[in-house]
């Protein structure tokens, strides 16, 4: 007879506030197989876990049920606890009475019986839990980093420095990402390019790093330790091996289009490198704008290319790489400030966004670092910086704070005051948020040393009057409406998830939140892992953050990858499909259903009525099987099962829930 221990967690008042834990305990004592019931304030705490270990030993428990939070949170924790007491970790089962009960109900009268139901079901399942053993798989000692902004570069360098191969993927022509567009970084005001470009060069030259720019993620198959990734190398129009990066092609190209890198503040050619320090220093051909592709004539670039590297007929190619781990560092998009009709972006040329300002103030930017108004190329004498355009605005933008805008707008104001000594800088803000090392000091310096004028109020309207831009707002500190006249306005847009974040997430089978930011496995305890083992997150793709945080997260993700790749083998989850050969009729209808091609026919020999006969049965490749269970439904014999989610276990849960004792707790 199995001996089940049931541990009911109060989770402080999180559970006990809505569920009468004592009553559930009293009822649970009656359940078949249950020999021990115990309540804990916090079962996941050290004493809570110790109590489990003690009870396993004292009560000779062979099954453990914890009724607490979601198994997605603490199942692994408790499995380790149970294992430390010498029990097979898969003898553990969990009832989710917090997320699925106490947190979503308010009435103790109905929440308590429901909690008991959940406990009963878990006990019924636990009674059928079997000892499972983890298998092992060989790890492909190579990592893929998707996105070569500062996060991707940092992660790639860290992993490569640890001695592992890295494939660094970037869809733009150059690595560098958003940071390459920036001028200076807060709060130290060191030059963004000066600290970034050496890293870009390091990444390009590192013997362990293979760089694929102008390339996109096509498909991800496989699983932790054994991913097979398909990469689309977009046609560059240039033979990278022949090209010397001399730049003649771009200087000769007759086509001029607004530069994406300069956020439309400057122009580029139809064959171009986004900026002089681009890595690799190889141009790409923009076929949509190229005269040859539009009209069939031109080819000037080809004529001038001494290296004979121009390739008009180049096509996209697909390559397949095997990697053991993936770091996703796909970055962010900016909120389209046009959505604020009242701010006149697009109507008034001198209303620009912050990234455009970065390009204006950047020494290598289109104005050589001179802050000039787009309308008349005059230097503005007054600039207003408007914060939270799209951030913290449920009506038009997003609910969250974009975290970096306060700081970079203060930086912008300082830069403006630095360059235009007699200029006036206004910052319109809701709250100034400076939670970072030396951030608050930076803010103080802006106000005190640079005379930046901070106005607490969100402009309700920007309009033009007598050639000036007027910001209408309420100064909420003074409690009265104001109008401020300036020559230029800089809007600080919210940071958004990439518009194709969902697609990226689906390609990799990882989850994303309502905004499109990729989900970490746990917001506090597993911040760089995803719910798909072997895939990690770095940078703003996970949520808005500034450069220091991004780099820290990138190194964290890298260390996770290094840890993973430092092993030759890794343990695999045993909760995968298995075949009862005795029951299997060998029809193999399970085979076409398996998404991992993990099922094959296998010939077995056995004695049937005294005769040795051989017959075919289905066999599961434990390295390939991921445990989805689709095959089990196709199996009429009932021969196919998923360990940990067997037919017997799932039916037991249904039966227990709906069986004779359903009203047991409710009836009282």
């Amino acid at each position: 007879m199995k001996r089940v221990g049931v541990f009911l967690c109060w989770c402080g008042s999180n559970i006990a506030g809505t569920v009468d834990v004592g009553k559930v305990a009293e009822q649970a004592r009656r359940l078949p197989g249950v020999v021990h019931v115990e309540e804990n304030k916090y079962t996941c705490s050290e004493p809570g876990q110790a109590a489990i270990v003690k009870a396993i030993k004292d009560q000779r428990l062979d099954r453990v049920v914890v009724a607490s939070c979601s198994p997605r949170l603490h199942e692994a924790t408790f499995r380790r606890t149970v294992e430390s007491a010498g029990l097979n970790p898969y003898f553990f089962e969990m009832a989710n009475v917090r997320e699925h009960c106490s947190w979503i109900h308010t009435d103790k009268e109905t929440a308590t019986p429901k909690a008991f139901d959940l406990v009963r079901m878990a006990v019924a399942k636990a009674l059928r839990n079997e000892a499972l053993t983890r298998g092992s798989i060989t790890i492909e000692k190579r990592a893929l980093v998707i996105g070569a902004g500062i996060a991707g570069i940092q992660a790639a360098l860290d992993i490569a420095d640890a001695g592992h191969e890295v494939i660094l993927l970037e869809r733009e022509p150059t690595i560098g990402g958003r940071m390459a567009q920036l001028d200076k970084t807060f709060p130290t005001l060191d030059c963004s390019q000066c600290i970034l470009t050496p890293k870009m060069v390091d990444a390009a030259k590192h013997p362990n790093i293979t760089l694929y720019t102008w390339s996109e993620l096509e498909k991800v198959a496989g699983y932790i330790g054994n991913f097979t990734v398909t990469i689309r190398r977009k046609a560059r129009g240039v033979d990278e091996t022949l090209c010397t990066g001399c730049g003649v092609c771009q200087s000769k190209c007759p086509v001029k289009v607004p530069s994406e890198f300069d956020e439309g503040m400057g122009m580029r050619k139809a064959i171009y490198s986004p900026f002089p320090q681009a890595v690799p220093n190889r141009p790409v051909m923009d076929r949509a704008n190229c005269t040859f592709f539009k009209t069939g004539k031109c080819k000037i670039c080809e004529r001038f290319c001494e290296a004979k590297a121009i390739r008009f007929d180049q096509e996209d190619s697909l390559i397949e790489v095997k990697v053991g781990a993936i770091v996703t560092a796909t970055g962010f998009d900016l909120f389209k400030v046009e959505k604020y009709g009242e701010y006149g972006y697009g109507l008034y040329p001198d209303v620009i966004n912050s990234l455009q300002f970065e390009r204006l103030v950047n020494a290598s930017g289109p104005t050589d670092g001179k802050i000039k108004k787009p309308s008349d190329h005059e230097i503005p004498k007054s600039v207003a910086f408007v914060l939270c355009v799209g951030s913290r605005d449920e009506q038009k933008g997003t609910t969250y704070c974009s975290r970096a805008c306060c700081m970079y707008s203060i930086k912008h104001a300082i830069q403006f005051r630095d360059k235009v000594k007699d200029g006036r800088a206004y910052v319109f803000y809701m709250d100034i948020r400076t939670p970072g090392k030396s951030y608050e000091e930076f803010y103080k310096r802006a106000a005190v040393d640079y005379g930046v004028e901070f106005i607490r109020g969100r402009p309700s309207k920007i309009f033009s009057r007598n050639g000036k831009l007027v910001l209408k707002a309420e100064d909420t500190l003074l409690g009265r409406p104001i109008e401020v006249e300036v020559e230029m306005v800089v809007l600080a847009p919210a940071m958004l998830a990439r518009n194709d974040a969902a697609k990226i997430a689906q390609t990799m089978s990882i989850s994303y939140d309502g905004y499109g930011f990729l989900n970490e496995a746990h917001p506090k305890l597993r911040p760089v892992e995803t719910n798909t083992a072997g895939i990690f997150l770095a940078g703003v793709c996970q949520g808005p953050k500034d450069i220091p945080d991004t780099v820290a997260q990138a190194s964290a993700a890298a260390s996770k990858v290094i840890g993973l790749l430092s092993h030759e083998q890794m343990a695999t989850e045993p909760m995968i499909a298995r075949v009862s050969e005795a029951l299997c009729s060998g029809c193999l209808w399970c085979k076409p259903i398996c998404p991992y091609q993990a099922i094959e026919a296998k010939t077995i020999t056995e004695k049937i009525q005294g005769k040795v006969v051989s017959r075919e049965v289905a066999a599961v490749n434990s390295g390939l099987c991921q445990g989805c269970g689709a095959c089990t439904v196709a199996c009429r014999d009932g021969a196919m099962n998923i360990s940990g989610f067997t037919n017997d276990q799932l039916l037991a849960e249904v039966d227990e829930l709906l069986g004779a004792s359903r009203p047991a707790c409710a009836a009282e």
Partner: protein
Amino acid sequence: MAQSPVPKATRLVKKAGLGAWLTALAADNNVMAPVTVDGKPLFRWIGAGEVGQLDLAAVHTVNSPKGGVMPQTEPMLTYSAVQDGSGGKTLDIKPAAEDRPAVLFGVRPCDAAAIDLVGKVYLTGEFTDEQYQARRDRTTVVAIACAAPAKACFCTSFDLSPGAVRGADVVLYGRSGPGSVAEGDAYYAIAYTERGEAFLGGAAAKAAGVSDLPAGEADKLEKIVAAFRGLATPLGKKLGKVDVADKLESLFESAYWEKVSSRCLSCATCTFVCPTCYCFGVADTGAGGQGVRFRYWDFCKSPQFMLMAGGHDPRPAKKNRTRQRFLHKLNYHHNRCGEYLCVGCGRCVESCPVGLHLPLVVSDVRGLQP
């Protein structure tokens, strides 16, 4: 044939009164009777509202009335976990609730005999099945003599007849003798047991207009009963008296079993329609510390019937299982109890989808070389 049974009471009941009788009986008894559902005659428990479906025309219901004393599924006990005084738990076990008294009405003489025959298994020897005993003790069997035996009938191949009394408390004989009972006609209702006597004198019988025999009909009655008992059965005539018990002693290893069993479907049709098959299995059903233990009909033709934990099966093939079924009926039981475990109802003949039945085996066995 055994000595003629002695009537304890004789009454007359009009055919038109049967409905009222059953309705009155249903008030205090569980009543089982032949009814027709969607074209198929079946023996079923009927409520007062279903009396109108009574159908005595078919000689054979598809199933036999054995479920009246051996329900196909019968709760044996219920259990529930309760807390004991010391915070632990203990099992509270209760025997299954007792049913009301039962009347099996319109039972054919073969089926009535089968009840008696099977009863010997459950009630004699070292063990008595108390639950079966209790059920028998509260059951009255009202048989009806067969006016026109069916094509597959062969009760006469044993010590039985269309007018036999064995196992019945009361037998109804058509007043006009073998042949159909017309509307307006009546039955002689003859009690052969004390229970039957009481039954005919009971309130329900009175309500149904069960009356004393008109004076001077005793002679006629005797003749008519004799006519029923002397009636031949079509298959019985063909088969003659079953006489293979001894011969089968030497045929255990015969190749015949392999041959005859090869077309068996391994289904339970023969077993479940047979009035004399009595094997059962026991199972529990329950959840959350409460449940029911029950027994249910099992069948020896099933590949699971003898399968043991660990996978060993003493009767691994259809050959073994088919042999078992027929040897049980024709040899083993005969050796133990001195009679065949068959009453010649002919249901296996009618129901087996592949024509594999007892008369066939009897006739084949006669032709086999020992």
